[in-house]
C-alpha cells in the first residue's frame, strides 16, 4: 500500500464493505428493493424494476473495485455518485413527509431507518466517498 495513507485505506475498505453488503442483500430480495424504490416516488414506474435489478449489481461492482487494484479511482467516483443519489432520495422523501423504506440493506430490520436517519447515513457515505475519490485522484495525479 505504498503511497496511500492509512486513514484513506480504512475509509475505502469501509465503503467497499458497506456497498458489498448492501448490494448482496438487495440481490437476494429484488422485489423488496423495488418496493423500497417505489416508496420514494422519484423513479418513473417503468424504471423501478430495471433499477431494482441493476443497482445492486452496480453496488457490488463498485464495492469490489474499491477493494483494490487499478479500478479504485473509478470505484470511488461511482461510490460518490451512489451516495449522492441516496442523499437526494432521502432528503426529498424527508421534505415530502413520505413513509419510505429503501430496503438499502435488504429486509434487515435494525438497519431500516427513518428518512431523517437515512439522510444522515447517506451524507456520511457521501462525505466518505468524496474524500476517498479525491485522495485516489491525488494518488494517480
Amino acid at each position: 500500500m505504498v503511497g496511500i495513507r492509512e486513514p484513506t485505506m480504512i475509509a475505502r475498505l469501509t465503503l467497499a464493505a458497506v456497498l458489498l453488503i448492501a448490494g448482496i442483500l438487495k440481490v437476494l430480495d429484488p422485489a423488496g428493493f423495488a418496493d423500497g424504490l417505489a416508496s420514494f416516488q422519484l423513479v418513473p414506474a417503468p424504471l423501478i424494476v430495471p433499477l431494482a435489478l441493476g443497482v445492486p449489481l452496480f453496488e457490488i461492482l463498485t464495492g469490489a473495485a474499491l477493494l483494490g487494484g487499478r479500478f479504485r479511482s473509478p470505484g470511488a467516483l461511482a461510490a460518490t455518485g451512489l451516495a449522492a443519489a441516496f442523499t437526494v432520495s432521502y432528503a426529498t422523501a424527508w421534505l415530502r413527509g413520505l413513509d419510505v423504506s429503501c430496503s438499502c440493506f435488504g429486509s434487515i430490520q435494525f438497519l431500516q431507518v427513518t428518512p431523517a436517519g437515512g439522510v444522515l447515513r447517506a451524507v456520511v457515505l457521501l462525505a466518505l466517498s468524496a474524500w476517498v475519490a479525491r485522495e485516489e485522484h491525488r494518488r494517480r495525479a
Partner: protein
Amino acid sequence: MFRTVPMLRDAALVGLAFLACMGAGIAINFLQTEPLPLAYKPRAQRLPTDSRIPTVSLADITSDDRKKASVFIDAREPVFFEDGHLPGAINLPASRVAGGDFRGLPPDPATPLIVYCSGRDCPDSHLVASALVAKGFQNVSVFSGGWDEWSASGNQP
C-alpha cells in the same frame, strides 16, 4: 487539483459499468425460474389470491341472518373507510396486510368474515380474504359488489 482527463475517463467508465449492470441484472432475472416482471406491481397486488374463497351478494348480506351476523372487513385505505363503511366494519387495508399487520380482528378464527373493497374491479378484497384464510380464519367470504354496490342500493353506512 483534479486532473480533468482521467476524471472524465473514470466518469465514462462508471457510466458504462452502470449500463452494463442494468443489462446484466435484467438478463440474470430472466434466467431465474420465477423472474420478476419488468412492469412494477405494488406489493399488495402481488399477494397470492385464493379462487376457492366464496363470494356473497348484496341480497345475501342484507337478507340472510347468518350473513348479517358476520363481521365485515373493509379492505380499502383508511381515508375511504372514514368516508363511509358497512355497519360495524373493521378496516384492514391490503397495504397493512402486506406488511403482516392484522391488528383489530376478532380473536375467534371461526368468526364469519366478509371482506369487501370499493367494487367489482378492485382486487383488495380478494387479496385480504386470501391473507385471512392463510392466517387461519375458517369462514371467509368476499362481498364482490363492495362499497359501490352497497351505497348505490340506498343502504346507509
